[in-house]
Each structure stands twice: as structure tokens, then as C-alpha cells.
């Protein structure tokens, strides 16, 4: 009986994530079935690499969104760390490790700037991160005034390759889920972030360190963005300081987070959903490929699928029987 009840609670609280998982599985299955040459390691690696990249950015976005904030600078941090890494991830293994560490530190520093602005400066996150993203873009231009990069081929090939059938980027993502997300979910800081997002004043009254929770969320966002930047460096073995690219990544990350069932008002959702959301978004492109969609129709198709996907997230609201619940 108790087991049963636990399961039903779990289903109740994870319905949107499950829905996202089903959508992703359906889309990916269609893709695999329609593949002209069938499934191969190459196919999996390709899908994994681009999916994991967006998934990491979406993961970064998830933390601030959980606190009820938002980070419009995740894309800019990805580009900034990408530009930095393109200079340093080379040489002997020790140098490569140093370069990776430097990249992560750079991302953490970017996150810390946002955290300072939001927590100490008490700025509204949306505008604070908007301002910081231009700063990060400026720094990217310093790191990399023109496109290029010097990245170790072997390391990059290895990290963007596969062990047997399993893409390494996917392994890294799973490792992050296990080593960062699971402990986070059951840690005090994780609980604080959920509490702050759900009801900030109640959290404060209860003695939660609101500032600490918010700061942690932006720093974690910086950290995950830096990992994404590193992955981008390894995928492209170069970097280009591009604001368009940064903006695209940011907007896609928000879309992925929402598709994954994390509420933009905070307090509800989580990393697994965002990751699924990212993979769903990326699979749209793959479907265009296998369906051989007419070139000029593709952008429209992508827009419509995005709208439909986020619309599905709103389905529970159609079941609302108390109209008050539909209003904030």
C-alpha cells in the first residue's frame, strides 16, 4: 500500500517529465526508423554531441529558473568559456587539464558575477544577466578577436567520440546527473533553491539562506555553461566570439527548460526534464533531415513544433476545474 502511494505521488509530481520523455522517445524513434542507412555509432555520437551541448546549457539555465529567476547570460558564458578554452586546451595532458580547469574557473567566475549582481546588488535577474551578457561578450572578444583556435586534436576526437556504442558526451552528461544533480537534489542547498523559488518570503521566514541559495544557482549556471563551452570547444576545435550564437543558445535553453516542465515561476521542475527538453529541441532538426522537409518550410516547421511542444506543457491547465488555479 505504502509503495503504491509513493509511486502515485511520484507519477503525480513527475507527469510533465514523463510526458517529455515520451515525446522524445517517439521523436527519436521516428528519426531512427527513417534513417536512410540505419543506426550506427556515428549517428548516435552526432545526436549525442549536439544534444548534450544544448542539454548542458539548459541544465545551466535550470538552476536560476528554479529559484524563480532567469539567466540570460548562459549563452554568453558558453561563448566566453569557448573562446578561452580555444586558446588553452592543448599541449601535453597536464596542459590540457589545466586548460579545462581554467575554463571551468572562468565559467564559475562568470556565474559569480551574476550572483553578486543578483544577491548583493539586488538586481532583477533578467536585466542583470542581460547586462552581464554584454560584458561576457566583450571578454570573449578579448579572448578571441577573430575566429580560430588551437585545440588538441586527439583529446577533442576522443571526447567527442564513443566508447563502443556509447558516446562519451552522453557518459559525461550522465555522470553530471549522478554526481551533481542527485546529491544536489538531496542537499540542503538544493532544498533551499527549491524553497526560494517556490516562496521566497516563506523561505526567508523559515530561516533559509535566500541569498546563498540564489548565489549558488547562478554559480552552478556558470559551471554548467562552462562545461558546455568546453564541449563546444571540443566539438569545433575552435571558437568564434558571436553574440548571435550566444543569444540563440540562451533562448533555446529557456525553451528546453520549459518543455522539460520546469516552471518559469520557480520551485517546480528539475534537471532531467531540461535535458529531455534539450534533446527534444535538437531532434526537431534531425526529423527535418530524415523527412527531407522542403528547405523554405523548415524554419516554419521548427517554430510550429516548438509552439506545439510548449503547448503540450500547458495541457494540465486545460484540466483546471477551479479557474482560480489558472491565475497567479
Amino acid at each position: 500500500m505504502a509503495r503504491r502511494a509513493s509511486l502515485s505521488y511520484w507519477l503525480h509530481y513527475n507527469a510533465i517529465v514523463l510526458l517529455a520523455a515520451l515525446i522524445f522517445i517517439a521523436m527519436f524513434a521516428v528519426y531512427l526508423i527513417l534513417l536512410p542507412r540505419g543506426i550506427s555509432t556515428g549517428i548516435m555520437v552526432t545526436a549525442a554531441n549536439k544534444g548534450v551541448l544544448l542539454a548542458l546549457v539548459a541544465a545551466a539555465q535550470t538552476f536560476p529558473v528554479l529559484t524563480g529567476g532567469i539567466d540570460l547570460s548562459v549563452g554568453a558564458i558558453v561563448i566566453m568559456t569557448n573562446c578561452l578554452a580555444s586558446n588553452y586546451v592543448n599541449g601535453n595532458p597536464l596542459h590540457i587539464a589545466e586548460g579545462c580547469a581554467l575554463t571551468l574557473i572562468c565559467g564559475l567566475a562568470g556565474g559569480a558575477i551574476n550572483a553578486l549582481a543578483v544577491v548583493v546588488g539586488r538586481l532583477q535577474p533578467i536585466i542583470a544577466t542581460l547586462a552581464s551578457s554584454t560584458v561576457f561578450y566583450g571578454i570573449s572578444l578579448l579572448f578571441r578577436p577573430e575566429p580560430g583556435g588551437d585545440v588538441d586534436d586527439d583529446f577533442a576526437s576522443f571526447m567527442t567520440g564513443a566508447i563502443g556504442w556509447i558516446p562519451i558526451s552522453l557518459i559525461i552528461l550522465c555522470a553530471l546527473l549522478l554526481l551533481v544533480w542527485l546529491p544536489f537534489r538531496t542537499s540542503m542547498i538544493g532544498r533551499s533553491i527549491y524553497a526560494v523559488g517556490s516562496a521566497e518570503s516563506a523561505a526567508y521566514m523559515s530561516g533559509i539562506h535566500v541569498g546563498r541559495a540564489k548565489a549558488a544557482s547562478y554559480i552552478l549556471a556558470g559551471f554548467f555553461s562552462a562545461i558546455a563551452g568546453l564541449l563546444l570547444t571540443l566539438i569545433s576545435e575552435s571558437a568564434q566570439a558571436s553574440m548571435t550564437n550566444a543569444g540563440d543558445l540562451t533562448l533555446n535553453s529557456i525553451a528546453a527548460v520549459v518543455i522539460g516542465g520546469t516552471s518559469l515561476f520557480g520551485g517546480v521542475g528539475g534537471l532531467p526534464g531540461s535535458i529531455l527538453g534539450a534533446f527534444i529541441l535538437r531532434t526537431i532538426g534531425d526529423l527535418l533531415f530524415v523527412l527531407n522537409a522542403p528547405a523554405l518550410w523548415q524554419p516554419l516547421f521548427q517554430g510550429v513544433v516548438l509552439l506545439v511542444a510548449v503547448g503540450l506543457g500547458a495541457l494540465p491547465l486545460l484540466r483546471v476545474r477551479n479557474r482560480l488555479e489558472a491565475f497567479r
Partner: protein
Amino acid sequence: MPWLAQWLRRHEPSFLIGCGCILLILFIGGIYNSHFLTLPYLLQQLQVASYLGIVAAGAMTVILLGHIDLSVPWTMTTSAMLATGLAGNFAHGILALPIALAIGAAIGLANGLGVAYVRIPSMIFTLGMNAVLQGLMVLYTGGSAPSSSATPLGIWLSNVHIIPGIANAVFCWVAVSAGMIILLRFTVLGRTIYAIGNRERAAYLCGLPVRGAILGAFMLAGIASAFAGLLLTGYAGKAYQGMGDSYLMPAIAAVVLGGTSIAGGHGTYKGTVMGTILIVVLQSVLAVMQMPDAGRQIIYGVIIFSMLMLYGRSPQNAR
């Protein structure tokens, strides 16, 4: 100067600090090059500010609700392209205005329906809408090569000076601003917008037309974007894909720098006007000063940061 003292007392500190910042930027620009303080330059900034200002006016109605409209870029582009393409030169392209506004309204309606009725978060629905509009415009330009040069009406509204020195676009902005002030201060819709931004549920239980107001606000935002798009065709001489790209984020920044809470329910229109001018002047001064791009970007971000620190902070905790 008692009037000055009175003027200073009448306005909240954030607004005054913002105005001070504008003067400071111009002053620093003036040290670099005295042309920054000449009337033609300032009037020219006013013209450029009109386009952003009109977009920001629309963005503000939506932000006051506690929502956001990310479909601004392609709303501008779509209405401008369709208006120039469909109106052509028939009767001086007079049809461009109704076409643009109707398209803006239609896009706003779609946004409003998605947000108010289907209740998809606006940030994501309008983002999707933006993508759909882009897709539609790719199809539109791909099917044929529609005319995209500005209609005479668009040029007249935007670039002709009925009063020498001041472009008509400035008067368009003044008209939109008058409309905004009336809307926000004296109409039921305006009051409802503030109420929704404050506490939607309470507004609903008061029997205020919550959904209608959301719909209305998004339509107004769509119309404002479309109007700005049309004016922009007159300024640049044509409608082109991507013409709205550089207006979304600055418009949001202008609204927030003007003291409107991004969570909704709080803010005055004069602040938005101030924020618009601030952004335009800052961009312009930075653009003309010769320095590497990196420096330009960093300084732009840092200045916005510092200004927010001066006055844009959220209220302190009870302590």
C-alpha cells in the same frame, strides 16, 4: 529656481538619477568631441530613439502585466515586410499603415490568446511565435520577390521634417507616448493591466476583465512593434529580414532602466521614455568613440550595471 526644486521633488529618485546619467553621458561625450552637445546631434538621437521608444512603449504594457514579449523582432519585420510588399505605391502607399497595424494586432492577438487562454508562459510562447513568424517570412520572400522598398507614407512618417530639424518620427513617438499615458493612467484597461501585474488572481476575483486585458496588452504591444517597423522602413528606405533584431533587448532594458518592475504591476511611462533615451545616447556615444569592440561591449554592460545599482534595485527585505 523654485520650479526646478519643485520639478525635482515631483519625481522619484530613480527617474532623476536616470536623467542625471543621460546628462553625464552627453557631458563625457562632449569632452571627447564637442559635437555631442550640438542641437542637430541631439535631435538626431531623438529620431533614432523614437523607433526604440515606440517598441519600448509596447514592451512596457506587456511587462507591466508581468509578462514579456520576445516576438518583437519578427513582429516588426513581418509587419514592415508585408506592409511594404502589399501596399506598394498605391495612393502613396497609404495602405501601409493600416496593413502594418492590422498585422501587428493580429500577431498580438495570437500572442494574447496563447498567454491568456492557453496559459503558456509568455516568455516561451512569444519566443515560439517569433520563430513561426520568421518561418512565414522565409516562405513569403522565397515564393516571390516582393517589393520591399519603403512606401512614401512610411518615409513621410519617419524621415520627413514638417518642423525643420525634427523628423516626423519624433512626433509619432510623442503621439504614442500621449496614448500610453492616457492608457496607463486614465483607462480601465490601464488600471486592469497594473492590477494583473500585481496579483492576477485578485484582479480576476474583482471581476476585472483579466483575459481581455492580457489580450489587449499584447495586441497593443504588437501594434507598437508593427508601427515601429513601419517607421523603420521609412528610415532605412526598405523593409528587410532581421530589421527588428536589434530592438528586442534594448527595449526591455529601456523599460527596466526606466524603473518598471520586470515582475509587473509597477512602473511609470515617463521612466520608459527616460530609459529609451538613455540607451540610445549611450549606444551612440560608444559607437562613435574609437575603441576596440571588446571595450565597447564591456563598457556598455558595466554602465548599465552601475546605473541599475544606483537605482534599479529591488526593495530591500523587511530588515
